[in-house]
């Protein structure tokens, strides 16, 4: 299994928006050939649309672009959770409500969740939210994102090189 697949990959918006949905698996997305399903972003909440008891839809601006996010609040009514232990569901619903109240316009939020595609647009289905108080966290996030990008590119480059080397060797043989 791809190690990155279940990792909340730190992505800047410009990178996130370039993800391509997998033609075979609805929950998978490709980023330069690597399969992802989860993502993490840090940025300012710039829009917020709350539908009580249903969801809160908000946008995170991380300086390189905006990422749409949706946080579901319908756990108590949803048939998806009906089979689970009601006390568990209540806890999950309570956590989601807490997250929603944290998400105010202008706060610096760290958001993680599954990458989904809604009507052709990419978004994050939020699983947890942390409001960051330290503005440096955003810069650290940028650095982390750039670092992972560089590593990814380096790996791609390496594999390209080794592939071409192999090709050359094969030719020579």
């Amino acid at each position: 299994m791809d190690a990155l697949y279940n990792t909340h990959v730190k992505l800047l918006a410009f990178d996130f928006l370039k993800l391509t949905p997998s033609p075979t698996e609805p929950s998978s997305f490709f980023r330069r050939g690597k399969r992802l399903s989860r993502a993490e972003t840090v940025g300012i909440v710039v829009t917020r649309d709350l539908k009580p008891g249903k969801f809160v839809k908000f946008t995170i601006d991380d300086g390189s672009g905006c990422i749409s996010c949706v946080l579901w609040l319908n756990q108590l009514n949803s048939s998806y959770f009906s089979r689970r232990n009601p006390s568990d569901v209540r806890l999950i619903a309570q956590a989601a409500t807490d997250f929603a109240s944290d998400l105010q316009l202008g706060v610096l939020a760290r958001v993680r969740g599954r990458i989904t595609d809604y009507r052709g647009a990419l978004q994050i289905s939020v699983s947890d939210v942390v409001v960051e108080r330290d503005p440096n966290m955003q810069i650290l996030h940028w650095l982390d994102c750039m670092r992972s990008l560089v590593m990814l590119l380096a790996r791609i480059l390496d594999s390209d090189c080794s592939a071409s080397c192999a090709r050359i060797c094969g030719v020579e043989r």
Partner: protein
Amino acid sequence: MEGKTANILKISDLISCARPLTGVSSLTPGGNVPSSAPQPQDEPPMHFNKPTSQNPTIKLLKPLNHPAILIGAVSLPLHSNKNNDDVSTIECSCLQFTDGSVTICCDVLDFQPQMIGPKIRICAWNFIPLKVGCRLSGFLEIIRWEFVEYSSNLTEFSLGLGTFDCKDDSKVKYSLFGVLESTSPVTVVPCSTGGSSSRCDSRNICGFLVKVLVCECKFCRSRKTLLALRDLSDESCKNHCFLKCLIVYFCGSASSWHPVMVRLIGNLISLSGLKKKLVYIGKDDSELMYVTTDKALLRLPVMAKKYILKEKAQVRGFGEVGSYAGTVTGVYMQGMVVELDQGVLLLLTDHQLMVPHSLRVGAIVSVKNVHFVSTKYSWTKILLLGTCFITCICVESFSPMETGCHRSSHSQNSLRKFVDSMVFPARLWVLLTVTCFRKKFAGILSEKEILGSKHEVGLAQTYTNSHLPASAYQMRHGVFLEYCRHGSCAYHKEEDYSHLKLVVPISCLWRDFENRWIKMLLDSEDEFDIIDSRREKYYLSCCGKYYANLTRKTFRSQDTGVILLGNLKVSPSSGGLQLVDATGSIDVVIPDIPSNWDLKRVYEVQDFTIVMQGIPDYLDCSKLLASEPLTCRNIFENAPLVRETKISLFLYYHFGGKTSSHSSFSSKKSKESLQEFEGGNFHLLLLKHKFPLLHKRLGDQFISNKSSAFAEVAILPWDLVLPEKNDVAHLGVVPLDELKNVKKYETYGHLKRCKTDAVSIQAQESGLSEAANLTCGCLNDSYCTDFGTERKHCDASCPLKFPCLISSRSIKCPYQGLVHCTDKKEVTSSGCNPDGRRVFLEFDSESLNMYQRLRIGAFYMVKHHQNDVLCRAKVDDKALGGVILVSSETCLWRLSFSSDVVAKNSDPSPIVQQSDSCVSNDEITPDTTQKFQIAPLKFDGVSPESYSDINLCMPADVISYFKIDANNSKTSLMKSPASLKEEIDIYNVHRTAITASVLSPETAHSNLLLPEGNLLTFRGQIVAIHDSSCTSFVEHLWNESPVNVHQPILSQGTSIICIHALVDHHMAMIFGALDKHAYPTGLGTGVHATFHRILVLGQQNHYMLIPASFIEIDSVNVVDNGCNNENDPVANSIFACYATSPSVFPAALISEVTHGMGIKLMQLHCRVVGVHVLVLQENKKARYSSTRVQSGSLMVEIPLAGFILDDGSSCCCCWANYDRAANMLGLPTQFISTEACARTSQRLKIPVRRRTNNSSFDHLNRIIRQHKRVVLSAALMKTSSDAWL
């Protein structure tokens, strides 16, 4: 059938074979084996009479490979044949077996009294060879037997010599019927003079006592009892109540029945033909008892079943009498101690006890009427079985192993008597101590010196006697009295013997502490079940690299309950001080070692601190932990020394004062070292420096074999003149005030001294200065007469002569001496400069003990000898820098100075305790000018600066001269007295060997560039020590130091160490390339040390040890580091300022870690996204603890927790201990210890949640309360992980 195939063996053949054997009448896989007697084999015969279990690989008894039987008869031992010359004890009272050829001792498993006499066939047996005196013999263990011919089932036995008569003799007055309770050992009583009634008036009487419990009902009291006995059934027995105790004396020929009576204990018996007599059992004590006659008969009921005596009270270990059955697992100390079931010790010290030979390792024995004594010593707790004269020992099953027979030792030395005169706990302690003494002094002292002889008291007895309280002794009254009046031997339960400490052999101490070390590591591993977190604690970073830090653990002697005895010696290899015994040695650090310690004297160390330090490493701990070295078993056994750990262990204690004591006993008394101190002229010296020990290595051409240590001293321009011994004798106590009242000086012998008569002194009224002036001339004359060459330096107008009071530890009454200026030029108005006059002291290998105790910066005095180097150095500049050879005869006394003002201000009376007042000359710090101060008198004797041998109390106005001396000397110490080059030049001039030894031979060439720079002395607390790589150090020097250090100084292949020392709140790094043995014992973290002549490197706070550098240990911190220092704020602060902190770990990504970075410490910036596995269980301790938190508390333990971490690059699993798991789960902080939480939070940088979701914890609480234990695995968490996050 059996008889047809089985060989009939002869006992004589078995004895000549001299091998332990076992044989049976039939073997299941019957083979036709040649019918021959066993032949002596090539194997060496077994060790005769060696009953110990010291060999761990005990073999099973070798069975004969063919059926073999023995035919013979069992008979009773004959005690009554003893004549007057015999000793008063009976060696054994075993049954005898004879087959016509030889008679040997035997023991029978299914004993019946009927077997005595007729011929029997022995179908299963063990034979154990014995040596009786010089004669070969053996011991037969009869497992199964049968009558050869039909024998009537007799139930009546004649005890006397008379003919067997089963008729009821009407003349027999007394008879008894009851339960046999106990028997005493067989004793020999000297016959009273000319008793006409006594049959054996010219002989000793053998005999033993028997207690029979009888019933007092009418039936029993009637004479018909005996007749009715044959029909006595179990049912009718039940109607009797056997309560009344009667004593029967089996004397004369009846004494042979002892082995039978022992086996009948608990049975119903009937005795008839008895007389009633008043027998003297003590000097003034007599007892009415029944005595056997020649017509005495023993009858046994047909249904001879054991009558179960009433259960005694519950055994609580307070000396109750009871029975114990167990397997013999060890026999020690010549059979005096028998270990049962690997934990219970049976004491058989009393030589009169009858112990069967079959008490061998592996046998199952039952001990009847034994005292149960639960004993708690300072180091262990054990159940003792104390035997007395009512105790009987029977073997229930013979040992199948090839172990030696039990032989009671009948040696009558004084130690044995001493042991017997004690209560049981003290007996065992003495036996343990004797064992340890024998181990400790094997080869040093003879057995006789340790154990003593019949008339002489040995070392072990002297020692133990001095340590036992009076209550540990008990009066012994002999067998009769103690048996009849039983109770006197009972254990004094109110006495506590927990203060008795074990004198351990040093090898045992090593093993014990190695075990403790391993346990400590294992415990810490349990605490941090993740190995890396343990490692993290031990590692520190230096110059960008990680090094293993020394872990340190200290134990106080109170915690261990042991005492050490040994000689103090200077190790020839390391030059360090060691406590040595025959089993090993241990390094010691004694800050206050006196000058008169003696190599030959045995010292006792009671109160000490053991410091272990080492690098924690993974090791196979199973071997070491299997045995506890300080259990009684291991002490008695000769366990070999196993050293598998790489720890260093040293002992830290104070010689004087309350903290320790040294024994006064010694095999060879040392000469009184202060003898020389009395009388004569003494030079005063200031020790400037000590050079590390020189070790001759292969290729060293310049080091002579004898020279090994050097020290540099400055000669003070003062001499001390002391009166002769004879004059001192009548000096008496000189009050302190007399110092000022001395008016007149008179001559003592050849020198002028103050008048000794105290009365006349008291009559004087003039001041000291006047006295000095008055006497100057005459004293000067005589002085200069004595030291002719010094006349020119002694100016008659010199006022600097003054009396002083001399006192020391060993001198009870201080007496008067005179301090005398020898070189006026050196003494200026601003003081004297001792730097100008320096000489070297050379210590040969025999005087290394002297070298050991010298302290840099301390004052010493040495006896003047005619025309010695010191004298010449004072007058002749050419003699400066000369070398004085210090031999083992030379004495150097450490001096301290005090003023009369100080003494008077505090309390003049205890001036004898002078040693506490001294010139403070050890307070050395790098950057502050030293203030001279006279320490106030302290009487607690614990000041580390007060280890002087001799104190000079002098007037306050003249002590200022010494003040300046000291001040100057300290200033010079502080202010880089020489460059390294100069230092080496000095050695080159005076002793090529010094330089040659410390530098490699090629570096001695003059064209070689040596490091240059200033030398410094400073004092600091060592925070860390680690081995450093040579290359990094050299790079370090090249890069950062302007000092011209060249590679050759480091090219000796010695490892480089790096010392981090906290000096005046600055961290100093000291690099060293010296040999390991140049470091003093005890150098480790937490130690306060003074570093002398350290080369200052270019970079701030960087220093280097040069070959002349010397490290002195000032004090050893007894606070641990490593695992257990978390509660100590000081240690924490020091450690925190230097040891690893999260910031020094490189940040890493999980994807990098998973791609293999090896074991490294690193930081991850990540989040917990899930739980891999989590075990939550109820915390039972917290549940019942009084500190239970308010409602809503979560009382959980987390024995196992694995979390999924995600940092965006990858995921990984993280194992966490309790604290960290609680943090990662976001449990409220009050549920975990605040300290631990804070530390973990700090390290983990977990953001504090704004609000605590109390409902989740209540929920969790409910779950835990209901289910006690909840296990969450990854599969479960996958679906519900959102609930946690």
